[in-house]
């Protein structure tokens, strides 16, 4: 092979030269035409004021490559690395998210497309569905984790281990045996993950909307989630959806005129105040480049009551910048208002006319976000290092009153999907379900159940439950007991005393659909990838908290203790040895004998010793010549001692080296 390579080497370079030579040949210059479909890229940004005085910014980039045999080989806009990934691992669907912070379902919304598809659990979450025979999927998944790990500078490769991922059958997504799911709750997300993500955009963060992705403002946020979703099929080609969701706290402008009069005025903000940058033109490669400003339906309803909401400048607020158009949501439920989207075209802006979308509030307004049918919490019970319980609690938000369906037998379904690492040994038979504080018979509530118990150091335990609750319940709770396992010392992660994270559980409400459709009038004949995402029918989803389980940890400081103890012993050894070296026992005995003949009392003896010492100190300068004389006599002795010490040092060094 090597010699072939060598021969081949020259060929390759000639090929390169030939190629560059040939690009300009007239015969080959007839390049246009071919397939009608082109690779496309769109960039969109959604801004939305949140009820708790924060601002949501959702960046949405979509690249698509039409179905082609050249996918993974020749690309103009679509990132080649992703296309090759999809091709090599035969990915049908993949989603990778990097999240820091926790989505606040109560305040930021739990029943809208944003929370359903963009609220993600902290850390890294990866799932992928493959188009491969069943026996190849695990192997492919492992390779995929490594590839993604390299691509995004993250420790996604930890999902390679069979203890880290699971194969949900129906609890996570639709029925699929070719799907694998893994989560790393403790993965720290930072700029080294964002940079490769941005590199997948054709304009990177150099122009267009991505220019706003200023690292300090993103990582200062209350929540940020960077997501990548890949859908690949023979009919649609490859679609890469990149979304970054940030919840920011705008700084309150002190010079706001109304702020002094009213106590609770929402902070006014603009893109510049949030990100420290302005949009100065679109990415030239983007097909569409827009900024949406969304008013939540409750807010729009309240503004409407004040003054029919038609203008961007009304009695409640004023937008900084004139929107190109506005879109209203088509709402099935009347008298609840419908959300409003103001659309700003980025293409109209340039260096001289930057686009700085923002809002200035005129009156204080309080509104709420649509909530999921149940508010979810998950927590640990019990104490000690031996056993405990996991509890999942559901608290009704009385949404069913708004969506009251058939009067009799009204029921709400909830699917719980939970993966637990093997060292938390859950006893699934201890499942208890409480509805409104009363214990229920499991078969009354659980419609469907799939449990795969964990195997020690082999696979995590996973639980998929389909629950059916009556509509009128106030709260429900599930508890599961577990034993804490023991790990080998090698298996402990750094800082094991912090505890071990159990990934978030996912609760899906299949009865509730969070799609949104919009009143797109004829003048807006464009297609927005973001709005079409919002129109997709996705069930409402809620991720629970990540649990932190303290496990029994060995005394990691033991080696340190051993070292300190032995060093103490050594110091004692060394000290006593030095003493022995210095002391002349024979001389002292001789002196003792000569003194003993005189036998003075103890106190006179001590006094005489003291006085002699004092005399020595006083006479020390005088005795220096004799000292130098004696030192010259002692020269060779000193030399041998120095040599001895040197020899010891050499031996010591030799030992250490070999040791």
């Amino acid at each position, binding site marked *: *092979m*090597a*010699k072939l390579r*060598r*021969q*081949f*080497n*020259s*060929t*390759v370079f*000639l*090929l390169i*030269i030939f*190629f*560059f*030579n040939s*690009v300009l*040949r*007239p015969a080959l*210059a007839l*390049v246009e035409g*071919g397939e009608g479909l082109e690779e496309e890229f769109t960039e969109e940004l959604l801004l939305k004021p949140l009820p708790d005085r924060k601002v949501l910014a959702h960046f949405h980039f979509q690249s698509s490559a039409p179905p082609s045999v*050249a996918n993974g*080989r*020749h690309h*103009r*806009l679509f990132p080649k690395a992703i296309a090759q990934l999809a091709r090599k691992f035969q990915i049908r669907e993949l989603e990778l998210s990097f999240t820091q912070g926790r989505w606040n379902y109560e305040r930021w919304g739990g029943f809208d497309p944003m929370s359903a598809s963009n609220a993600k659990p902290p850390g890294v979450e990866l799932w992928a569905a493959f188009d491969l025979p069943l026996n190849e999927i695990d192997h492919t998944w492992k390779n995929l984790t490594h590839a993604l790990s390299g691509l995004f500078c993250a420790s996604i490769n930890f999902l390679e281990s069979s203890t880290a991922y699971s194969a949900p059958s129906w609890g996570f997504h639709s029925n699929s045996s070719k799907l694998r799911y893994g989560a790393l709750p403790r993965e720290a997300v930072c700029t080294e993950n964002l940079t490769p993500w941005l590199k997948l955009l*054709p304009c990177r963060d150099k*122009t267009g909307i991505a220019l706003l992705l200023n690292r300090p403002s993103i990582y200062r946020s209350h929540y940020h989630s960077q997501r990548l979703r890949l859908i690949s099929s023979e009919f649609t080609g490859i679609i890469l959806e990149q979304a970054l969701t940030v919840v920011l706290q705008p700084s309150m402008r002190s010079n706001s005129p109304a702020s002094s009069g009213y106590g609770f005025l929402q902070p006014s903000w603009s893109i510049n105040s949030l990100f420290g940058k302005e949009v100065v033109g679109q990415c030239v*490669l983007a097909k569409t480049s827009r900024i949406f400003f969304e008013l939540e339906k409750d807010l729009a309803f309240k503004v409407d009551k004040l003054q029919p909401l038609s203008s961007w400048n009304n009695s409640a607020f004023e937008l900084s910048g004139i929107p190109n158009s506005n879109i209203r949501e088509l709402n099935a439920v009347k008298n609840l208002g419908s959300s409003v989207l103001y659309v700003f075209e980025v293409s109209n802006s340039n260096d001289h006319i930057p686009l700085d979308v923002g809002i200035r509030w005129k009156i204080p307004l309080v509104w709420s976000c649509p909530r999921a049918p149940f508010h979810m919490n998950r927590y640990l019970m019990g104490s000690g290092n031996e056993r405990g319980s996991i509890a999942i609690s559901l608290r009704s938000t009385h949404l069913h009153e708004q969506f009251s369906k058939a009067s009799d037998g009204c029921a709400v379904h909830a699917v719980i999907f939970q993966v637990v690492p093997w060292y938390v040994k859950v006893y699934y038979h201890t499942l208890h379900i409480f509805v409104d504080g009363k214990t229920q018979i499991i078969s009354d509530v659980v419609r469907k159940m799939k449990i795969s118990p964990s195997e020690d150091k082999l696979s995590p335990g996973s639980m998929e439950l389909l629950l059916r609750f009556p509509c009128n319940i106030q709260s429900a709770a599930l508890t599961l007991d577990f034993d804490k396992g023991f790990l080998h010392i090698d298996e402990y992660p750094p800082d094991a005393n912090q505890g071990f994270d159990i990934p978030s559980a996912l609760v899906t409400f299949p009865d509730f659909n969070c799609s949104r459709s919009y009143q797109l009038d004829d003048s807006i004949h464009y297609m927005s990838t973001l709005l079409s995402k919002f129109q997709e029918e996705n069930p409402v989803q809620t991720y629970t908290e990540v649990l932190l389980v303290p496990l029994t940890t060995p005394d990691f400081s033991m080696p340190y203790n051993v*070292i300190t103890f032995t060093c103490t012993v*050594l110091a004692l050894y*060394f000290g006593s*040895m*030095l003493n*022995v*070296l*210095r002391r*002349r*026992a*024979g*001389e002292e005995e*001789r002196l003792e004998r000569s003194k003993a003949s005189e036998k003075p009392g103890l106190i006179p003896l001590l006094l005489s010793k003291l006085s*002699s010492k004092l005399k*020595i100190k006083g*006479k020390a300068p005088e*005795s220096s010549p*004799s*000292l130098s004389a*004696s030192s010259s006599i002692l020269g060779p002795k*000193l030399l041998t001692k120095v040599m001895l*010490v040197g020899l*010891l*040092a050499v*031996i*010591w060094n030799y*030992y*250490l080296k*070999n*040791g």
Partner: protein
Amino acid sequence: MAEISESEPLNPTPDSPDSGASSRRSTMPGTKRLMVTLSVLFPFLAGLPFLLKSTEIYRSPLPFSSIDSLSYRLLQEPPSPPCRLQVVFLRPGIGDSADRLARLISDEVDKRIEGSLTCGSCGRNYAVSVTVDSGNGGCARSGIGEGDPCFWRCGVVDSLGLRNNDEAVDEMLDAALGKGGRCMGSGVGKVYTVLVGESDAQEGVRIVVGKHRHAWVEGNVGENDAALLIANIFIKYFVNGGREEFVAQRKGEFVPVGLDGSVVLSFSLLNAEPNDWVYDWNFQKIDEVMLAPVVQALAPVANIHIESQVLYHTPKSSICNWDDKSGGNICGIGDLPFFIIEVIDRYVPSRNECPLLLQLPNGQISKTNGFISPMWGGVIVWNPPECSADSQNKPLIRRTMSPEVQSLPRMIIMDDIGKQVKYSLEAASLAENNASLGIYDASAVVREIGRYRRERAKYLSFMAEQAKTS
């Protein structure tokens, strides 16, 4: 330790000044004390490494020495997978001639393979099997070859069959040997086949080396001559790839090869500033029309993948300065390592840095406006024609590299390479003529090898010329 040595000279001082003769030591210090001290000190020092060992955390050592020794061993004795030389005599045999012939060939190969270093091929790890296919069902085999599906099936081809057109014979043999005759799964490794047929011509032997690890000899050759010829073919073409020199000295550049043995040629078009202009190419078509045939032709030796992408916002990483004399931005050759970090690129500079020229170390402007870094790739700077025109902010059009953008540097490259190709083709045809006059004919393998040599020569001359101009 230092304290000990310091303390010693101070020690006599309390005794010396006034204690008089009584306190002055009368004897030399004994060795007993020294021995006692040392007996403590030495066990302590000897025990220290054990102490340190016992307190350190165990980490399995990395087998650096094993890795080194392995790579050294590989360099000294390259691994030689087993292979088999199968010789088929298409002539009537006599008795146990198959075994005798096998021994004869084996001896001959042994003799000639001595001292030659083979790299990547089977080297000394070969087996010889001989089949005497006398036609009419007569079939004699050496050793225990009976029933092995990799063996030559007697009666498939006769001596007359070898007299067809070489290409046809090549394909026929390939089919007869079971599509390549590779038999890789049977544990014998690659199977090389040499067929010896008879010819009507009284003298002259014709040897053809085919494309699929087989060769055939036409002519009336004696057994000893045949053994010599076969050994020659085996060593020279099958083992050593047809080159005279052995691959002992493994110098020269390698193309980085992936773990699966494939080579990826990645072409990128870099638009430094898409706000100025965006250039596009239809690489897929270029690939299909131009590169695919080359890749296909090279398929027997290398698995080449070609990919391309267009990248945007890729400013170069080195700083280039404006030069009034040449009317362009000049980049010195020293900056090239930092120019771009992609592999094979065509770089379209932005309006600010346009035209961008590369300067050779002798101060001249590179005519090719590009550079090649062996084992890495190359970059060609392509200055768009709008560069010189003082056009301001035209509406953005996606332009395609088209015939009207032929620029001078490109022409030079074309001329250079065109000339080289012409010369080398002439030389090659001359060589082929010479070869066909002689005893050896050139079939596909020989031709391919010739082509590599030519291309290597071209590449070397190109590099030399670059070095000369620079």
